[in-house]
């Protein structure tokens, strides 16, 4: 951790430095959005967003919690607009907003329960229509918020390891595991289990980007017996599979997933054969969105992966699409494994209420 020496940087320099970093982050987000392989994994994005928010808290000019929340919301809106499909950015912003609310409530001395969500109980017992406007100034608030953000960063660093530690409970010897594409979380999960158990992994290649190939190479380097299959062979091979373990880009508020294309097919094949589908997803992927926004849900990238530009004759007569994501409904999922343990999809609403405040669902 680098501690900024505030005495050496005069005020206006600090602000230009801050704006420069925010602009650099935004252009990074806009560029890093191509589907040809994540130039940055979600974990790095989450870490960078949180570090940037910590910098904003430390360097921006604000006098009350309300001001800070406004600044963060404003920057947050710009960041999510730069790359709408990268939901971890929005999730981290909401986490930090909740941290600010909690620290404010703690400074005011009120118990944390009073600041929670709407509930029937609150409706009946609250004394007035008073709106919490966060205008009071507390001297220690800045330090408290920064400390809490540091805790969040430590949590982020440990997520992949925490998930991988649970691998031995779920993977047994001589099992056949199926996965799709490349997920760093699943990779660490399987490698951790391979230290003690011997099992076989089948990787679906996940066309057209074929990230499954990289996953297979990496797993076999760790000594795991791996087989690569095409996406079309998923159903055919499924009868021999014991478990399906996948990663995801986002976990939605109803317990559904937004994962790489091909995952819905995999989930349906698993359901048909009654094979358990396990999703390894760290908490920062949990997003309060529902799958109703057709225009922001999908992302389409250049179709030259599907049909290269060399096939010029066909291109003028045919429409070619290359979607990046798939929606998987919650009924097809058996278990979510996150850094805080295993949960059923119907429990996601509870995790969400612990991580985010309902007023922050819309930034």
């Amino acid at each position, binding site marked *: 951790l680098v501690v900024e020496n505030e005495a050496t940087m005069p005020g206006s320099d600090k602000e230009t430095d801050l704006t420069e970093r925010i602009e650099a982050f935004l252009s990074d987000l806009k560029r890093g959005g191509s589907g040809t392989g994540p130039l940055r994994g979600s974990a790095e994005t989450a870490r960078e967003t949180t570090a940037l928010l910590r910098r904003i808290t430390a360097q921006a000019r604000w006098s009350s919690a309300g001001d800070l929340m406004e600044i963060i919301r404003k920057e947050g809106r710009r960041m999510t607009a730069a790359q709408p499909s990268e939901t971890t950015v929005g999730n981290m912003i909401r986490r930090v907003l909740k941290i600010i609310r909690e620290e404010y409530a703690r400074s005011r001395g009120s118990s944390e329960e009073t600041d929670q969500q709407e509930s*029937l109980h609150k*409706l009946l*017992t*609250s004394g007035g229509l008073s709106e919490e406007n966060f205008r009071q100034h507390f001297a220690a608030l800045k330090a408290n918020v920064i400390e809490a953000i540091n805790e969040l960063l430590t949590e982020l660093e440990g997520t992949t390891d925490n998930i991988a530690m649970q691998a031995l409970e779920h993977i047994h010897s001589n099992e056949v595991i199926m996965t799709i594409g490349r997920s760093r979380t699943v990779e660490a999960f399987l490698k951790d289990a391979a230290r003690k158990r011997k099992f076989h992994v089948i990787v679906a290649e996940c066309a057209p980007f074929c990230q499954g190939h990289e996953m297979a190479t990496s797993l076999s380097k760790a000594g795991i017996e791996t087989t690569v299959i095409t996406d079309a062979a998923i159903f055919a091979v499924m009868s021999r599979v014991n478990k399906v373990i996948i990663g995801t880009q986002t976990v939605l*508020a109803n317990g559904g997933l937004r994962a790489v294309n091909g995952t819905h097919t995999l989930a349906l094949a698993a359901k048909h054969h009654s094979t358990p589908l396990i999703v390894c997803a760290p908490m920062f992927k949990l997003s309060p969105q529902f799958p109703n926004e*057709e225009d922001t849900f999908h992302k389409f990238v250049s179709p030259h992966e599907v049909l290269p530009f060399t096939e010029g004759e066909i291109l003028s007569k045919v429409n070619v699409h290359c979607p990046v994501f798939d929606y998987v409904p919650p009924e097809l999922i058996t278990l979510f494994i996150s850094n805080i343990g295993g949960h059923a999809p*119907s*429990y996601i*609403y*509870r995790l969400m209420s612990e991580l985010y405040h309902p007023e922050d669902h819309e930034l």
Partner: protein
Amino acid sequence: LESLVEYFRAQMRKDPDMASAVAAIRTLLEFLKRDKGETILGLRESLTSATDCLTGVDSSVAVSSGGELFLRFISLTSLEHQDLSRCKKVMEERGELFLEKISMSRAKVAKLCHTFIKDGAKILTHSYSRVVLRVLEKAAAEKKRFSVYVTESQPDAAGRQMAEALRKLNVPVTVVLDAAVGYVLEKVDLVIVGAEGVVESGGIINKIGTYQMAVCSKAHNKPFYVVAESFKFVRLYPLNQQDVPDKFKYKADTLKTVQNLSEEHPMIDYTPPSLITLLFTDLGVLTPSAVSDELIKLYL
């Protein structure tokens, strides 16, 4: 007690758009103001008899849930203040506040739900629900183009009333027979219904025919959405249709006059949570498993 019934009827007549639970709570608040009791226990007893009296007028689940909620409100407030007169003042203030908040709940529900209606959607709904009407109003105000199928909903043909109201909003609407739900579902994109009561399991109690519609939409894989305000949450846990108490199934006059209930047609049915996709309430968008959480927070 007769003046109470009169007050209740007057409330319902004055604002036909008001939910019956809200009218019941308003009536009970009025009763509280007029009450001359000396003890909290006496107050609770008289409120319980007042609620029974109201359910004798309108036997719907909503009135019963409104009454229970009010009773709970009294208990919670009386725990904080021991002195009866001060307690009553606090209760009256909070009661007015509570009424204000729940009068805004339909607007909150509409705000949450209208984003789920996409442009060009075909919606199926059941019978006449003021909350669904509000949601569709909001969606129409946001310039979404959609068309609606409404079931006729016998025996009182309430669906026609819904169709009339929708025609006034310039929404293309078709009235279908209750028996035609399976037939029409292949054309439909989503199903939205209201609820008279939301039970602990996350299921709903609504006009007869809702269960049928839910089973058919599950078979066709169409999303089944329920819109309900939070004061409709009720502490029942029916396991099947028979478990729903008779006092809710039939109209109040039927219960009083008829000897053999098995020859009467029930007015409501129970839809289990496994058939419901999402519930839109003023407490947020909830999955059916989140409903019991809310109820526990209130009653424990």
